[in-house]
């Protein structure tokens, strides 16, 4: 136990450096802008249909806070309910332990190929790589994940992992890797190619692996929300189903789902409801997998729970709304964050799961923001992301030691970043660039607008402060 936490990618540069590189990639920026602009507008529309949206958000926040307050009770209750219905519950302290449990379960079924439905938890623990090392081939079945997997690439968005690829690139990847090549680069033909490629896999798979969007403590029911039907295939066809979920994914009662099944689809895919939601409880004789394993994953969550300010990140339902409104994300893309959790949520969750502010890359993530607050406004469970960012910045400074000139500059920067008003005042006065320029490490922090406009790789950003620019543009464009 106790290796490094794979939630961040080994060897990733700190955010500033990675962002700098991403900004040079105009294709990436164009794809991202198109995608995030589209989804922002759609989301605003379906949210405006709900007169009680703010009340739903507050209920969602309260339910999740209740889960965190009584996490031990609810976990034990879930375990009892799942076990009573014929499921087997496993507990994993960290990524390594979870991966070993899953690998052993697969080996026990005597197979070396499994189908997988997209799951943040399994991406977080690096399950595919661990299975590969153990001689098991895990096939991603979401279209986007398949694009990423076949392109030997990394996901860049929680919900649309291949948001950085356009149709021509996808056609090229599929043509290279599939025996039946796509007929054209029309999305319809690309989807058809994926359907054919995966269908054989679904029909023959013995074991499937999934994550969980929610688990109901009272009843032991697990919920998976999806669009393509690959989730249903994985959850229905194979004999054995292994579900890996973070311990915070609980809701206490079945009734609580009425809140989240309204908040999640509208916030994530900007639909009134996503095409498919599957709910199952343990094993149902004669219907679906006859063996069900649930792996409950800690991997830094209990440590996050111990942080009074940071623990609210555990309310996250992974809708990705905060990514789509984030001006920094829109310009740098998901890869710059060097983690399976990109964007604003990644900036607060990944460093906490890593739990080591001496890790330069993790410590740089809380700076991947201009603190404009758009993420907090859209978050369906009201996570105050700017508040957590500021808090983590202070921790990063602390970790660097109190007396180094760098730490002093960092502390000053953190103090300025902590308050939007202060930040703008400092920027106007030019004092910001003074301490930003003091040493190389800090100089490369991209949050402040001044540095963005200085960069020749960021021509899209006009010569005004990033914050002012964003405030002016957000209304018109979203």
């Amino acid at each position, binding site marked *: 136990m106790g290796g490094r936490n794979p939630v961040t990618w080994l060897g990733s540069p700190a955010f500033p450096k990675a962002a700098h590189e991403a900004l040079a990639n105009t294709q990436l920026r164009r794809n991202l802008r198109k995608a995030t602009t589209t989804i922002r507008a759609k989301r605003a529309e379906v949210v405006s249909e709900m007169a009680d949206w703010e009340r739903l958000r507050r209920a969602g926040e309260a339910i999740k806070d209740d889960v965190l307050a009584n996490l031990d009770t609810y976990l034990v209750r879930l375990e009892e309910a799942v076990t009573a219905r014929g499921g087997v519950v496993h507990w994993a302290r960290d990524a390594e332990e979870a991966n070993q449990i899953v690998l052993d379960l697969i080996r026990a079924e005597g197979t070396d190929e499994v189908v997988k439905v997209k799951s943040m938890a399994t991406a977080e623990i690096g399950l595919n790589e661990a299975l590969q090392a153990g001689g098991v081939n895990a096939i991603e079945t979401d279209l986007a994940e398949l694009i990423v997997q076949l392109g030997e690439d990394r996901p860049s968005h929680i919900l649309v992992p291949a948001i950085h690829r356009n149709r021509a690139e996808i056609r090229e990847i599929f043509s290279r890797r599939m025996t039946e090549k796509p007929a054209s680069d029309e999305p319809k033909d690309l989807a058809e190619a994926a359907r054919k490629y995966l269908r054989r896999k679904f029909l023959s798979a013995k074991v499937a692996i999934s994550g969980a969007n929610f688990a109901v403590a009272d009843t032991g029911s697990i919920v998976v929300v999806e669009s393509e*039907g690959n989730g249903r295939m994985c959850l229905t066809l194979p004999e054995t189903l292994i579900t890996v979920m973070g311990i915070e994914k609980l809701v206490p009662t079945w009734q609580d789902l009425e809140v989240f099944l309204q908040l999640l689809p509208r916030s994530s895919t900007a639909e009134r409801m996503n095409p498919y939601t599957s*709910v199952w409880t343990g094993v149902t004789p004669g219907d679906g997998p006859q063996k069900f394993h649930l792996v409950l994953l800690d991997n830094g969550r209990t440590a996050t729970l111990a942080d009074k300010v940071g623990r609210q990140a555990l309310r996250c339902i992974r809708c990705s709304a905060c990514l789509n409104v984030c001006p920094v994300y829109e310009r740098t893309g998901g890869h710059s964050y060097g983690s399976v959790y990109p964007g604003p949520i990644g900036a607060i969750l990944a460093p906490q799961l890593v739990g080591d502010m001496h890790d330069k890359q993790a410590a740089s993530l809380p700076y991947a923001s201009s603190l404009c607050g758009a993420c907090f406004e859209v978050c369906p469970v009201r996570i105050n992301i700017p508040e957590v960012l500021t808090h983590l910045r202070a921790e990063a400074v602390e970790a660097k030691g109190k007396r180094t000139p760098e730490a002093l500059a960092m502390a000053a920067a953190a103090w300025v970043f902590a308050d939007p008003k202060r930040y703008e005042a400092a920027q106007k006065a030019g004092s910001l660039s003074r301490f930003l320029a003091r040493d190389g490490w800090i100089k490369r922090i991209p949050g402040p607008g001044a540095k963005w406009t200085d960069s020749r790789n960021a021509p899209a950003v006009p010569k005004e402060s990033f914050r002012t620019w964003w405030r002016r543009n957000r209304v018109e464009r979203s």
Partner: protein
Amino acid sequence: MSSAREEILSRIRAVDRPASPPVVRDYERERSASDVLALLDERVADYKAIVHRVSEAEVPDRIAECLARRSAKTVVVPADAPDSWRVSGVEWKSDDPPLALSELDRVDGVVTGCAVAIAETGTIVLDSGAAQGRRIITLVPDYHLCVVRADQVVVSVPEALARLEATRPLTFISGPSATSDIELDRVEGVHGPRTLEVLIVG
């Protein structure tokens, strides 16, 4: 070695946690609609599913029409589906004894009922209960024709969940399978049935 279970639980218990906040459910648990069936019709159609409003007496003829339009010859039905659905001119495969996967992969479609439908979100919920069968029969065939009765339709998500039993295998269906993974262009039809047709009865 203390077990992972004990260690995780004790880590949680070691944390100084705040008291549970009260959960205020002042959101709208029930909503009214002037014409709930019209709302369902509109919202299901919005997902590019095909929707028809029919009377009880018309159901068999409309099933026959829908299947004929698709030239569906071999069609699956749950064993307990009403006899009147099994119109002539079609080879009906009853899922009793359970059909093999390879057989399901060859049929032209499936006809089922549902447990609940949610008008506001255009969602049909199956719970493997009456006239719905195992989950697999509405998944593998490429065409799903679903018969929704007026008394099964509610307006909001909370009303639907209140009617459902959590421990049954549930599938919430909102339109045909879809993806927006390529440049956020929506494509209907990936792995689940690529065509969803709904008869709203009443």
